[in-house]
């Protein structure tokens, strides 16, 4: 929304600089995007000139040599315009002036004749569209040499505003001026719709036209007036300048008037060439499915059944509230005009505009819902201009097809309530004054004001709290509010235990050498395929978006590993030799649940359950030298055992432990992968990435894991530990070596040892593995460090020996023996 400075000030001029004015608007009313300029960067060097004489250039047919009085008696200016003539009052740029396109004007010799300046066209000044000849100033009485800026906006500051969607009134310059009035108290010009044109046409409007609204719920008001004797032509310079300043292209006086009134009041209007509307009969109806028409931009468009069309007897003539059609367009030949000023259903306009991908100045206003009362205001202003600028005659009468006009809201404002909400006092008198300036009617004294809401704020201000916002913002938040802190909290601020443990887990991963990544959870539906996950697996059934921006980001990820592979691949491609990454984040599954509570388990507060299952995961990937080499030793590339050590350390940081049992995933090396168990619960996977998957992501080799965090947190005693006396009765340490068949997994050996060790065995860690002659072909020796302890006594050698015997028995059951 562009508000040319001089236009705005024509209604309310608080005598502030344009920067100060913009700042006041920003601090009290609407966001200011920026201050720009229309026309020349500076008005310096532009003056009114009087053409004293015109002679043909001696050496150029198309040039004239003019004597122009620019306030200095006379100077020679060479001019190429065909319409230059003695006696004209014209805009002149003197040498030194900077043109709107940025070029600086200098004296110049044109075919041997020195030109001391330039007579300007509208286009050169960027105040109009006419480039064919020089602009001739119609207004008389301007003395030569008068700064041109006093006559026309040569260099016009423009405040670019971004009104919020509730403030459709500020999509009109008069609405913005009303805000300036409310903020500064400076007087506001009378509303331009206060007057009306005299109806001098023949007959009455119904002799010329009829309107039938078949969809009244989508068209709360349709008003029409008819003008005869319309003389189509260019608009006067002042009007063109205002339109261009506001960012619109002048077309002809009738179309310009409709645009001008819209820019002034926010109410869009549409002019029909009445002679192109058979019998002047208009019908407002919804479109038939697939119905087509060609809009003013010469594009054929087709509609669905929700679109509202303004039709004549032969078919569609315009899309309601969005754009007119070619069929009834005003042209140079037009002499009779039907002026439509209607009110449409905003939601309907918004939907149709979106569906067509067609957003116009009109639809942008209609979609925010205009009040039906504004339509008649628009008729009155436009009628005056039609008479004044087009020589038109207004036919008596107004067609007004209107549903019931909504009644104004009557509200109460308790000023002490306002103070209680805002935390700043505002005198009741001032509150009343602010509201009146905003065109609210206010009565009542003391602490309760009775307020009637004006039509232009009807849909925005419906409750007391809305009035509180009005008085609060006009009074000024920035100047008047002193920050305080709430006096009631009633609780201790803290993270929950699971939030604290999640931070612990994330910090542990960093301490273990992994970089924290945050990746895009929207992904490609082809991802499970690239991970070799077969159909039928829940991970191939992601939650999808109906309206994605691209297929690449059209579904929620069902596993985190894809994001990590992407990031690892990116970093490898950018030269990283060692990549170790982890992500702490969610997977998104359409179904599923966790036996645990809390947000990590995807359980959220609220009466209505969340539509999807969103478990929190810790996932990691490593490729290259997870344990880096140095001048002192060899590097160790990421493999199963290195990442398993990381996973175990992660669990340890939480005071928990994990168990890994053989288990496959389609994207893992089948012989080097396992399920991660936490307290016996399957909580994820660990393993080396399948070579085919690595190839898919251009990785040589990689290993990683992905586990649910909720089971780890549930298994964590952190914060809930109880002291155990380990000093009075110290532990007894022993090592055992178990010889078993090579095929027996370590986890089974350990389980046998633990079984045999009984309650007194506090820990059993595998610390060595040996294969070789001493244990025989096809067998291995696993060494475990055992720690026995009792809480109430020092263990005797006999007790420990007894346990050792029991371990021997248990080991025997899995075909093993203890090595002496």
């Amino acid at each position, binding site marked *: 929304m562009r508000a040319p400075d001089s236009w705005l000030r024509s209604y309310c001029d608080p005598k502030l600089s344009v920067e100060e004015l913009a700042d006041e608007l920003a601090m009290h009313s609407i966001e200011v995007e920026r201050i720009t300029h229309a026309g020349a960067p500076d008005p310096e060097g532009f003056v009114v000139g009087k053409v004293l004489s015109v002679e043909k250039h001696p050496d150029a047919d198309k040039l004239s040599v003019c004597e122009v009085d620019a306030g200095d008696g006379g100077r020679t200016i060479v001019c190429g315009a065909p319409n230059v003539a003695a006696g004209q009052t014209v805009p002149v740029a003197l040498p030194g002036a900077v043109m709107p396109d940025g070029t600086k004007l200098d004296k110049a010799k044109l075919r041997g004749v020195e030109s001391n300046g330039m007579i300007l066209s509208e286009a050169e000044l960027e105040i109009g569209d006419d480039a064919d000849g020089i602009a001739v100033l119609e207004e008389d009485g301007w003395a030569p040499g008068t700064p041109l800026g006093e006559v026309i906006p040569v260099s016009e500051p423009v405040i670019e505003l971004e009104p919020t969607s509730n403030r459709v009134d500020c999509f009109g310059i008069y609405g913005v001026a009303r805000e300036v009035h409310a903020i500064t108290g400076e007087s506001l010009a009378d509303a331009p719709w206060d007057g009306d044109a005299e109806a001098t046409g023949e007959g009455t409007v119904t002799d010329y036209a009829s309107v039938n609204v078949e969809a009244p719920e989508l068209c709360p008001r349709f008003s029409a007036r008819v003008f005869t004797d319309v003389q189509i032509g260019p608009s006067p310079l002042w009007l063109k300048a205002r339109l261009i300043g506001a960012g619109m292209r002048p077309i002809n006086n009738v179309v310009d008037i409709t645009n001008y009134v819209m820019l002034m009041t926010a109410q869009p209007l549409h002019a029909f060439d009445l002679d192109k509307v058979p019998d002047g009969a208009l019908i407002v109806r919804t479109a038939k499915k697939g119905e087509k028409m060609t809009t003013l931009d010469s594009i054929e468009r087709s509609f669905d059944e929700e679109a509202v069309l303004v039709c004549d007897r032969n078919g569609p003539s315009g899309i309601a509230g969005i754009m007119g059609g070619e069929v009834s367009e005003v042209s140079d030949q037009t002499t009779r005009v039907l002026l439509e000023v209607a009110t449409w259903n905003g939601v309907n306009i918004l939907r149709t505009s979106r569906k067509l991908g067609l957003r116009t100045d009109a639809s942008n206003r209609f979609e925010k819902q205009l009040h039906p009362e504004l339509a008649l205001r628009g008729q009155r202003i436009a009628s005056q201009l039609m008479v004044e600028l087009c020589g038109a005659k207004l036919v008596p009468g107004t067609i007004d097809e209107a549903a019931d006009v909504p009644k104004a809201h009557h509200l109460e404002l308790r000023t002490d309530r306002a103070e209680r909400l805002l935390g700043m006092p505002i005198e009741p008198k001032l509150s009343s004054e602010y509201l009146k300036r905003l065109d609210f009617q206010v009565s009542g004294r003391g602490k309760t004001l009775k307020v009637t809401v004006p039509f232009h704020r009807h849909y925005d201000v419906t409750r007391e709290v809305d009035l509180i916002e009005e008085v609060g913002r006009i009074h000024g938040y920035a100047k008047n509010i002193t920050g305080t802190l709430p006096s009631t909290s009633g609780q201790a601020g803290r993270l929950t235990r699971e939030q604290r443990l999640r931070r612990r887990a994330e910090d542990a991963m960093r301490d273990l050498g992994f970089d924290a990544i945050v990746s895009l959870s929207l992904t490609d539906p082809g991802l499970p395929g690239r991970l070799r996950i077969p159909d039928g697996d829940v991970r191939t059934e992601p939650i999808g978006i109906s309206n994605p921006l691209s297929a690449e980001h059209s579904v929620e990820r069902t596993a985190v590993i894809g994001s990590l592979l992407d990031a690892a691949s990116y970093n490898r491609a950018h030269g990283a030799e060692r*990549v170790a990454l982890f992500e702490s984040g969610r997977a998104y599954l359409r179904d599923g649940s966790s036996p645990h509570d809390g947000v990590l388990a995807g359980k959220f507060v*609220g009466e209505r359950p*969340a539509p999807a299952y969103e478990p929190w995961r810790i996932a990691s990937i490593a490729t290259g030298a997870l344990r880096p080499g140095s001048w002192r030793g060899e590097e160790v590339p990421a493999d199963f055992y290195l990442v398993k050590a990381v996973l175990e350390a992660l669990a340890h940081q939480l005071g928990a432990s994990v168990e890994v049992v053989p288990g496959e995933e389609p994207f893992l090396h089948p012989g080097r992968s396992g399920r991660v168990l936490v307290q016996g619960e399957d909580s994820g996977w660990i393993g080396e990435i399948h070579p085919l998957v690595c190839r898919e992501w251009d990785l040589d080799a990689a290993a990683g894991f992905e586990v649910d965090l909720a089971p780890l947190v549930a298994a964590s005693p952190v914060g809930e530990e109880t002291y155990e006396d380990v000093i009075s009765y110290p532990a007894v340490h022993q090592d055992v070596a178990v010889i078993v068949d090579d095929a027996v997994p370590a986890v089974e050996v350990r389980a046998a040892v633990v079984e045999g060790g009984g309650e007194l065995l506090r820990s059993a860690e595998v610390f060595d593995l040996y294969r070789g002659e001493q244990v025989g072909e096809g067998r291995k020796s696993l060494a475990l460090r055992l720690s026995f302890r009792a809480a109430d006594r020092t263990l005797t050698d006999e007790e420990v020996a007894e346990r050792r015997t029991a371990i021997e028995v248990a080991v025997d059951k899995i075909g093993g023996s203890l090595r002496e």
Partner: protein
Amino acid sequence: MATERIEELRREAAEAIGSASTTAELEELRVRYLGRKAELTQILRGISELPKEERGPVGKTGNEARQELEGLLESRSAELDASELGTRLAEDAIDVTLPGAPPVPVGAQNPLIRTQREIEDIFVGLGYQVMEGPEVELDYYNFTALNHPPGHPARMAQDTFYVDPSTLRTDLRILSNGDELPPGPEDVVLRTHTSPMQVRSMESRPPPIFIVVPGRCYRSDPFDATHSPIFHQVEGLAVGPDITLADLKGTLDEFARAIFGPERETRFRPGFFPFTEPSVEVDVSCFRCGGSGRLPDGSRDPLCKGIGWIEILGAGMVDPNVYGFVSDFNYDPEEIQGFAFGMGIERIAMLKYGVPDLRKFFENDERVLEQFR
């Protein structure tokens, strides 16, 4: 006289000990002067054979000499030990300028996580709790209960990703509204903000409530330097009997000072959000130019574009219509009031760390991550 001989031996031995240069030499001296066959030992051993009156003085002198020599031996031995150790250690010297080995890798922090934690911690310090909510969310919480009735323009303005109902659990697959009707409360969206947790949290506990809600949000904004279809927000909600807009200002002042520096302040401009009334846009005084809009060299500060203020978040007083959706949970707009705010974590991190392009946060380039620990 024996005592004189003892004195002589003592002097001789003391001198020899003092000039011994190795521990081996010292051991030799110990044997020579104090060993079994040493003269002093012999004298002391033969003391009983001396005349009675000499026994006392000889014994005393002899023992004193012995003790003194033992002391000297010990201290000289310590001296020599130290110097020999020094020599040995000197020979063990290494190049301390070589890097530590094997290296212990340390992972990098992510600037977004860092910023999120920082924001959480500030509000925890102010008495807030941290809550989290679902990202795949019901329209009801994302829009309807936040005073965006079906058809409300602000719904469309938010560029929502709607979830394809056929990809939901079967019991959630309501007939697609498709093109016929505007989306309704039963529809499922990817949340466009963290605000749905306002209503979820109020359903879960009566006032007073002081919470912040960090999390991931989605909007169908194509990627550019300041937009991403996925981004992170922190929501704040404080509701009690008498919480005012001035309390919002004071709270955000504290926040701004904690995150951008002690001199910072905030200012409110009018704004519009359907679920707050009044609504405000919040600026923080520019931490580069100090609010003047000018850099020390007089040039225009590009960070705040010369304005001296930087927009950081949207906020307001919770709209009474929102309380209408939680009236069963003791939220009566005549009895309680409060504020809500929502800030973009990426925006705060971009400002704080000078990150020029939002996309950088999601590339996960190690060379970038390594700048944050």
